[in-house]
């Protein structure tokens, strides 16, 4: 008897997800990321990895775009779910050669201008550092994660997420970190959570080391 009930519940949950009406069931979690000096840490990335077993969730955004404008990658920091295909259009009049030697994704786009022929699929989680072979100053960070729950802090430093109730492991990353921030277990209930976080930013940052 219990099986059908459980199954029903599961289906219900799945349905809720599928219908996108799970909002009613999601709890708002606000992570207030600050530097040690108390300043808002913009572009800091907050990632919640569910600790409870969940049904795999299909990528919500199977494609993403990182533009190249005025010899800058835009956006500078991009968080994507594993398997996302990222397009690297070149909005500059000059050509760029986008490459990565990061273990999570090693690739190189031959020197090009305008729209690339194909997108680059980031199929493994991890931090990918992008560069342009002919413009050393062009750097972008692509954080490939296995969870749909993540956010990039806005200028105010307060990242807001809508999380279903459950237990999560909260990870933090910022390009100015030189070491990983220890993960925290966060239990999300019905009531919104307000999590202040302080990042020890380094003068000699090692962004790769900060995301093992």
């Amino acid at each position: 008897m219990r099986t059908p009930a459980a199954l029903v519940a599961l289906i219900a949950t799945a349905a809720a997800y599928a219908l996108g009406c799970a909002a009613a069931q999601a709890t708002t979690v606000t992570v207030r990321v600050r530097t040690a000096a108390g300043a808002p840490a913009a572009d800091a990335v907050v990632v919640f990895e569910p600790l409870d077993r969940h049904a795999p969730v299909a990528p919500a955004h199977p494609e993403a775009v990182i533009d190249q404008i005025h010899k800058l990658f835009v956006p500078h920091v991009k968080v994507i779910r594993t398997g996302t295909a990222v397009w690297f259009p070149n909005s500059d009049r000059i050509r760029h050669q986008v490459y990565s030697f990061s273990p999570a994704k090693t690739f190189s786009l031959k020197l090009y201008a305008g729209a690339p022929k194909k997108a680059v699929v980031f199929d493994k989680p991890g931090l990918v550092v992008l560069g342009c072979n002919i413009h050393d100053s062009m750097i972008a960070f692509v954080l490939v994660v296995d969870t749909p729950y993540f956010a990039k802090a806005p200028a105010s430093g307060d990242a807001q997420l809508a999380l279903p109730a459950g237990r999560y492991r909260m990870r933090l990353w910022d390009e100015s970190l030189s070491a990983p921030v220890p993960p925290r277990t966060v239990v999300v209930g019905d009531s919104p959570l307000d999590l202040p976080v302080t990042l020890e930013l380094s003068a000699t940052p090692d962004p790769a080391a900060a995301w093992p």
Partner: protein
Amino acid sequence: MQLRTRIAVTLFLLVAAVLAAALTVVSIANRRNATREVNRRLDIGSLVFGQALEENRKQLAQAAQAVAADYAFKEAVAARDTDTLASALENAGARIGASLEVLTSLDGQVEAAAGTNLRPGTAFAVPGLLDPRAPGRAHSAIMVSGARVYQLVAARVRSPLPVAWVVMGFALDGNSLRNLAALTDLGITLSVRHGATWVRPVSTLPRSTRLRSGEYVTRDIPLLTRPEVSVVATLSRSLDAALAPFERLRRVLYAIALTSLLGSAVAAFWLAGDITRPLRRLTAAVARIRGGSYDAPVDVHRHDEIGLLAEGLQVMQSEVLSRDLAIRRLAYEDPLTGLMNRTAFVEALDRAVAAAGVPQIVAVVNLDRFRRINEHLGFATGDAVLLGIASRLRELTAPSTAVARLAADQFAVFRPLQVDETPLAWAGTLASRFAEPAIVDDQPIDVSATIGVAVAPVDAATAEALLRCAELSIEHARRRKQAVAAYSTQLAPAARDQLSLLGELRRAIALDELRLYFQPKWSLTTGRIVGAEVLLRWQHPQRGLLGPGAFLPFAEQTGFIRRITAWTLDRAAAQAAAWQSAGRSLPLAINVTADDIADARFHLQVAEALERHALMPHLLSLEVTESGFIDDPGRAIEMLSALAALGVKLSIDDFGTGYSSLSHLAHMPVDEVKIDRSFVLGLERDEQFAAVIRSAIEMGHRLGLAIVAEGIETDSAAEALAAMGCDVGQGYWLSAPRPLADFEHWLREREAADEANRAAAAGSGRMPRESRA
């Protein structure tokens, strides 16, 4: 030092000093210039050295950055393909000739290396090199690895974040230092300090070079300064090398200096010689002139000061010569008559006596009473008379006759004695030339002469001795009232070795060999002894007792009489004083000569004697012969007045023999007159004499003078004189001169007899006479 040497040495030293100063200044300036130049080179060298290191750094940086930016290299880094990386590094390094290439992780672990034995995985710790915070250009450093020094540059490998360092370096080894040295033209030495120990791993200079020795100027450029290790590059330049061009210049200067020094020495020597050579010639000329030779010309002809000096010397020489001739003339010629003077005559006579074997006859002609001619007729007339006589004598034209004027009124003649003539005959011929009176201004003036002759070598062998013989002959002639006399040895007692006689007389005075003899004077009216005349005898040690004739004439001739008079004065005064203190007032008379009277200090001498013996002046009487007044009556009267003022008694001796002027006598402050013995001796023979004596007594009394008669030898003479009114008598009739003891004895007896006589027959002028001694 000779003038020549002195001039030469002075000039030489002067030039040497100037050259030494110039060389010193040049040397100092050279050294200063060289030092400045070296310092400038070092300044430039330091800049060049810094620039070269910077160029190195840039080159290394370019190469390192190039390899770090290479995409394939980045791939290899990402792939950790160590071998590929090492070869890529080596390849990149080889392009610029780097000696060390290393790839390290960001934290300095070696991942790949070339040109070094660093193993992957070891630490590559170069302080300051791999500092990610350092600005882009600063990734360079100096590394010391063992004994090697590297200049390193690091570049980051970005893919795109920094993932590794590429380090490239040049070794600062001998080659690179040599290149730098060539570039800077300086010596470069690296010094490395490990702890407290300095080593000098590499240098472009020889090993033995001592940089701090002062030979080098150095500039230290610190390349690395850390507590445990330091690296210093020392740029150096040898001062000697910098001085080398100056040294060449200095050698040239030394050569010039030496040449000019030698030149100046030669020039100085030549110049000095040019000055001193004529000076030496002048000195020789002066020596010659000093030696009395005035005829050679001064042989220096120049147109400078020395030439003027030579001309001056020449003029001086001729003036000296003419003056010398004048002096010679004065020395040998009588200025008035032009005849030879005494000197010339003596020389000529000596020459004649020495030269010829023929006997020479010499005559001395003394003019009688010539002084009176001068006095009464004036010097001009006197001179005219002398000239007349001179011309008369010049008429003696017999061959080899020499005529001279010896003194004012004395002439001399000599010539060879003819075979058949006698000296006296020739003297007579001479005397005949004076028979005629001399005529001056149409006035005849009688001139008589007394002539004495002597013959050489019979009478004497020298001119002076011959003249003396002739003069003795004159005296002999005068004594005999003759016009001429020839010398004979009888005239010569005093002429015997007169020089030794003079010595003996000196000794006589010194050893008290002279004796005082006393001859009494008595009053012809009262018969009393009124005084005594002091006479001299010489107790000669060999010749026995000598009378005054044996030595007084000689003493008068030689002037020694002054000493004898002084001695006599002293002794007589002493004796009179002795008697005076014994209560006997017996005036003593001493003889005084013309010489004494002529001495302006004689009266002082007398006063001194009186004072010395505390003698009453009236107890001393001075008897002056007439000749004492003849030479200079004025002076004689002055002296007699001075003597009279002392209070001593004065008397005229030998009155009647000389030529005393009666007018003078009237003015003379004398007390008595002694009539000469010749009159008294002739008194009984010749009535003429008696008349003279009588008138003399009368005249003397008129003038207030006492009259003394000496030479009374007979009774009758004494009586006659007393009858004539003569006041005092003296002579053998009463007593011969007696020595002191004898005289005193005689005196005492006489006084005793006097007492007895006075008692017996008072008032008689006659006295008992004594027998002649």
